C-alpha cells in the first residue's frame, strides 16, 4: 500500500531516475525513489504520483527473481570494507511514522529505521523471516500467535525493547489521534483493536504482554495471512518516550530498532542515515546512506560521481548499454517487482456493466505484440492479477488471450454491440507528463481496429485522479498494483472482494466472495492457494480488469565500488548489506 507519492514532479522525475523501466511507460516514476511495495501505482510515466506503490523507483524494489543475477558483485570470502557513504537520489518521504506509511518513498526509509517482529525477505521460498522475534507459535486453531522476542533487544538510543513496547506501539497506531489511514486493514484483525479505532477503548485485550519477552496476540478468525501483515511498518515497534515527548514531530529524531538511524534531515535537501550501533544483527558496513532530495540531473550526477546509483532514461539507454562504453560495466539488470499493471473497468458504469463487452475488450488486445514491439520485451504480458514468482501465481492460467474472432463474438453478444447507442468511453490515467501512456494508446488503437470501439484517453494529475477514484467517478482507469505482503490476499482479496475499500472496479461476484472467505481462513496452505487461484480465474473470466503487464524489468547503473546491493521484488531493508570499496 504504499502510495507512491508524487513528489515528484514530473520533470523531476523525468530527469531523475527514470528507471529504465521507463521504457515501458509505465512506471517510471520519477522521483527517485522508491518504490515499494504495494500499491497501486499509476501507470503513467510521467508523473509520479503516488500511488501506492508504485513508483518506480528505481531501484528499490524491483526484482524478483534470481537474486544472484541481480546484485552488485558479491565478493565471497573477502573481508568487506566497512565505512563509506552510499549516495542516491530520493524524494522527501511524506512521513517517517511507521503507523502512517502508505507510500513507497516513506516505506523504504522507515524499514531502515524501524523494525518489527517479522520481516520480508524478497525470497519466494522463504518470504517471511523472524526479525525482532526469536520465534513464534500459533495455537487456538490459528487464532493465537505467541511471539518470543530476541534477548537484549535495544532501541537505537540504547534503551531495552520489551513486549510491552509492542503492545503500546500497536495500540498507539490504532488510536484515532494517530490518524493512521490503514490500521484497520493491517491490525484490525486483532481482538480489541477495532474498539480503539472507534475511540471506544485505549487498550486491546487481543495484545497481551505475558512477560518482557513474550507477546501473545489473538485475532478474530484463523487468518493465515495475518503474520504477513505484521511485516508492514504499522506493526513495527516505536519508543514510547520518543513518541510522547517528541510530539507531532517526534520523527525528527526517531528512536527505532532498524539497522540505521536518522542522522539528519533537511526537507527538500538531504537525508542522512547512519548505522545503528545498537542494532541486534550484524551492523551495517556503511557509515552513512545519503539520500539527496533536491533532485537534479540524475545521469549527469552519476557520471560526475555525485551519486552511486541511477535509473537510465530512454535517451541514454543506447549509449550506456553499448559494450564499447566504459559505463556499460555499471549496468545492472533489475528484475521485475511484484507488480501488475492493468486497466480497470468500473463494472457499474455503462458500457462496462456488461461482462461480454468487457471480455470483448480483453480478447481484442494482442499483449504479446505490444510487449515485443513497443517495450522490447521489457514487460511480460499479464494473464491475471497475481504476478509470476509470487505466492499463488498460477502458470496454467490462460486468461483471455488475444483472439479477434472471440472478441467480435463477445461484442456481438453484448448490449453495446451497436456503436451508435454505445455510451462514450473515457479511460483516465494519473499523471502530469506531456504524453499520456503509450500502452493505453496502443490498447485503444487495438480496440478501434478489432472492434470499432472508440475510447478517449484522459490524463489527470494525481490529486484529482485519487479523488475521482475514491468517489467511483472513473469509468475506466489505468493503474498498477504492487504486492504489500507475500500472500495472494494482497491481490485477489483486497482488490476484488465485494466491499473492499480499494475495490475500485466495484466488482462483485458472490461466488468469488465465497471462495475468498473460505480461502482467507483455510488452514491447509495448498488448499488455500487453490481457492485463491479459483477465485482469480473467475475474476479473469469476468474481465473486471484488462490485465496488462507484470513487473517492469529495468536496468540501472551502479558504481563499481558499490557491493552487496540487491534488488528484491518487494521492499526490504537493503542498505545494511551494502559496502563501498575504499
Amino acid at each position, binding site marked *: 500500500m504504499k502510495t507512491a507519492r508524487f513528489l515528484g514532479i514530473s520533470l523531476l522525475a523525468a530527469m531523475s531516475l527514470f528507471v529504465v523501466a521507463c521504457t515501458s511507460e509505465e512506471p517510471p516514476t520519477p522521483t527517485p525513489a522508491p518504490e515499494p511495495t504495494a500499491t497501486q501505482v499509476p501507470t503513467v510515466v510521467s508523473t509520479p504520483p503516488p500511488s501506492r506503490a508504485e513508483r518506480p523507483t528505481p531501484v528499490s524494489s524491483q526484482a524478483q527473481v534470481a537474486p544472484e543475477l541481480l546484485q552488485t558483485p558479491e565478493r565471497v570470502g573477502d573481508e568487506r570494507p566497512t565505512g563509506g557513504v552510499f549516495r542516491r537520489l530520493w524524494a522527501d518521504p*511524506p512521513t517517517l511514522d511507521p503507523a502512517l506509511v502508505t507510500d513507497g518513498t516513506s516505506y523504504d526509509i522507515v524499514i531502515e529505521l524501524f523494525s518489527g517482529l517479522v520481516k520480508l525477505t524478497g525470497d519466494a521460498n522463504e518470504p517471511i523471516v523472524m526479525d525482532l522475534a526469536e520465534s513464534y507459535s500459533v495455537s487456538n486453531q490459528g487464532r493465537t500467535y505467541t511471539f518470543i522476542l530476541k534477548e537484549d533487544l535495544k532501541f537505537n538510543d540504547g534503551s531495552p525493547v520489551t513486549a510491552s513496547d509492542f503492545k503500546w506501539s500497536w495500540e498507539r497506531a490504532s488510536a484515532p489521534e494517530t490518524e493512521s489511514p490503514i490500521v484497520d486493514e493491517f491490525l484490525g484483525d486483532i481482538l480489541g483493536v477495532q474498539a480503539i479505532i472507534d475511540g471506544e477503548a485505549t487498550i486491546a485485550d487481543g495484545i497481551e504482554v505475558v512477560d518482557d519477552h513474550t507477546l501473545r496476540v489473538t485475532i478474530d478468525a484463523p487468518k493465515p495471512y495475518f503474520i504477513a501483515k505484521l511485516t508492514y511498518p504499522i506493526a513495527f515497534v516505536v519508543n514510547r518516550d520518543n513518541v510522547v515527548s517528541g510530539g507531532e514531530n517526534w520523527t525528527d529524531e526517531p528512536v527505532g530498532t532498524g539497522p540505521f538511524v536518522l542522522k539528519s534531515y533537511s526537507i527538500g535537501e538531504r537525508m542522512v542515515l547512519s548505522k545503528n550501533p545498537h542494532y541486534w544483527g550484524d551492523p551495517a558496513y556503511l557509515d552513512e546512506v545519503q539520500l*539527496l532530495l533536491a533532485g537534479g540531473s540524475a545521469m549527469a550526477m552519476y557520471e560526475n560521481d555525485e551519486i552511486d546509483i541511477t535509473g537510465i532514461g530512454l535517451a541514454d539507454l543506447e549509449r550506456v548499454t553499448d559494450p564499447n562504453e566504459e559505463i556499460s560495466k555499471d549496468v545492472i539488470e533489475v528484475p521485475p517487482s511484484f507488480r501488475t499493471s492493468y486497466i480497470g473497468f468500473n463494472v457499474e458504469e455503462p458500457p462496462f456493466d456488461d461482462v461480454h463487452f468487457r471480455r470483448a475488450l480483453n480478447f481484442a488486445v494482442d499483449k504479446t505484440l505490444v510487449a515485443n514491439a513497443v517495450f522490447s520485451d521489457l514487460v511480460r504480458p499479464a494473464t491475471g492479477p497475481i504476478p509470476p514468482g509470487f505466492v499463488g501465481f498460477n502458470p496454467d492460467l490462460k486468461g483471455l488471450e488475444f483472439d479477434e474472432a472471440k472478441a467480435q463474438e463477445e461484442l456481438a453478444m453484448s448490449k453495446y454491440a451497436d456503436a451508435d447507442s454505445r455510451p462514450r468511453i473515457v479511460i483516465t490515467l494519473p499523471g502530469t507528463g506531456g504524453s499520456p501512456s503509450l500502452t493505453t494508446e496502443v490498447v485503444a488503437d487495438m480496440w478501434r481496429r478489432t472492434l470499432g470501439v472508440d475510447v478517449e484517453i484522459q490524463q489527470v494529475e494525481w490529486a484529482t485522479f485519487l479523488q475521482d477514484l475514491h468517489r467511483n467517478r472513473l469509468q475506466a482507469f489505468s493503474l498498477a498494483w504492487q504486492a504489500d505482503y507475500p500472500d495472494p490476499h494482497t491481490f485477489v482479496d483486497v482488490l476484488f472482494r465485494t466491499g473492499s475499500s480499494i475495490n475500485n472496479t466495484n466488482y462483485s461476484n458472490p461466488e468469488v466472495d465465497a471462495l475468498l472467505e473460505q480461502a482467507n481462513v483455510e488452514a491447509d496452505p495448498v488448499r488455500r492457494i487453490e481457492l485463491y487461484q479459483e477465485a482469480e480465474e473467475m475474476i479473469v473470466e469476468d474481465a473486471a480488469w484488462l490485465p496488462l503487464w507484470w513487473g517492469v524489468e529495468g536496468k540501472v547503473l551502479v558504481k563499481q565500488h558499490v557491493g552487496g546491493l540487491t534488488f528484491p521484488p518487494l521492499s526490504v531493508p537493503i542498505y545494511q548489506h551494502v559496502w563501498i570499496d575504499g
Partner: protein
Amino acid sequence: MLIYTSRRLLWTPVLLIVAGLFIFSLGSVAPGDPAELMAGQRADPEAVERIRERLGLNDPFLVQYTRYIANALKGDFGESYRYRGRDVWELLGPKLRVSLELNLVSYVVTLAIGLPLGFWAAMRQGTWKDPTMTTIMLLIYALPVFFTAPFLILVFALWLDWIPVSGWSGMFSTRAILPAITIGLPGAFVFMRYMRASTLDVLGQEYVRTAHGKGMGHMTVNRRHIARNALLPIITILGFSLAGLFGGSLIVELIYGIPGVSRLALEAVFQRDYPVLTALTLLGAGMLAVANLVADIMYSVIDPRIRLRS
C-alpha cells in the same frame, strides 16, 4: 512623501488579504482533497474524515480563511499538509534563503556582464562591433534554460570536470556558478540594452563634450562622467527587480538539484498543500508591493521633478 509612503504601506495588507483569498479559494474550488492525499490511496473513508476535521476543511470557506488571516496576523501561517506538523515558515525559511542567494549571484552575473557590455557597445555605436555584440547577446537571451543548463553541465561538469553538477552549498561555493550563469546570462542582454541606451543618452550631453573639450583623458571621461551618469536610471530598474529576489526559477532548480522555493511550490500544488501555497502567494504579493513602492520613491529621489502626491 511621508504621507504618501504610509498610505501606500497601509494599502499593502488589503492587497495581501485579497491575494491570499484568491489562492486560498482554490482549496474549495480545485479538484483533489488534501486529506485524501495525506491518507493515501487505500485509506478508509473514516480516517480521511478525521483528517479533514482536524485540518478544519469541513468548515465553510470564509470561516477557514478568516481563521487563517487571524492566525497569520499573529505570525502563525499554519502547518503544511504535506509535511505533517511542520510549520510553514520553518519549511519556507531555508528554501527562501537558497532562492535569495541564487538570485543574488545571478544578478551579479547579469550586471557584471550586461553593464560593461552595454557601455562597450555604446562607445562603439556606428561600428560593426555594436550590432554584432547585440546579436550575440540576443541569441543567448533566446536560448531556453532547458538547453543552456544541460549544455553547461555537459561542458563544465562532465567534460572539463571543474564544477559539481548538482546541489547547493551557499552562494560562494562552486556549485553556485552554473546555476547563476544559467539564470544570469540571458538577463545580461536586457541590462546591456538598458546600459547601452542610457550611455548613448549621456554621450550626447553637453557636459561630456565640455569634459573632452577641457582636455580630460578618455578613460577619465568615460569613468567619471559617462559611466556614472549612465548608471543612474539602471538603479531604478534594479529596484523593480527586488520583487524577484525570493522567487525561484523552477527549471534551474530542477536541473541543478537546488533546494529552492520553486520545487517546494510545485510540490505544494500537486499535494494541495494550501497553507504553503497561500504563504508563498502572500510573500510574493508583499514583495511586489514593496518593490513598487521602493521604485516610486527612488524615482522621486533621483528626479526631483517627480512629486509623489497622494
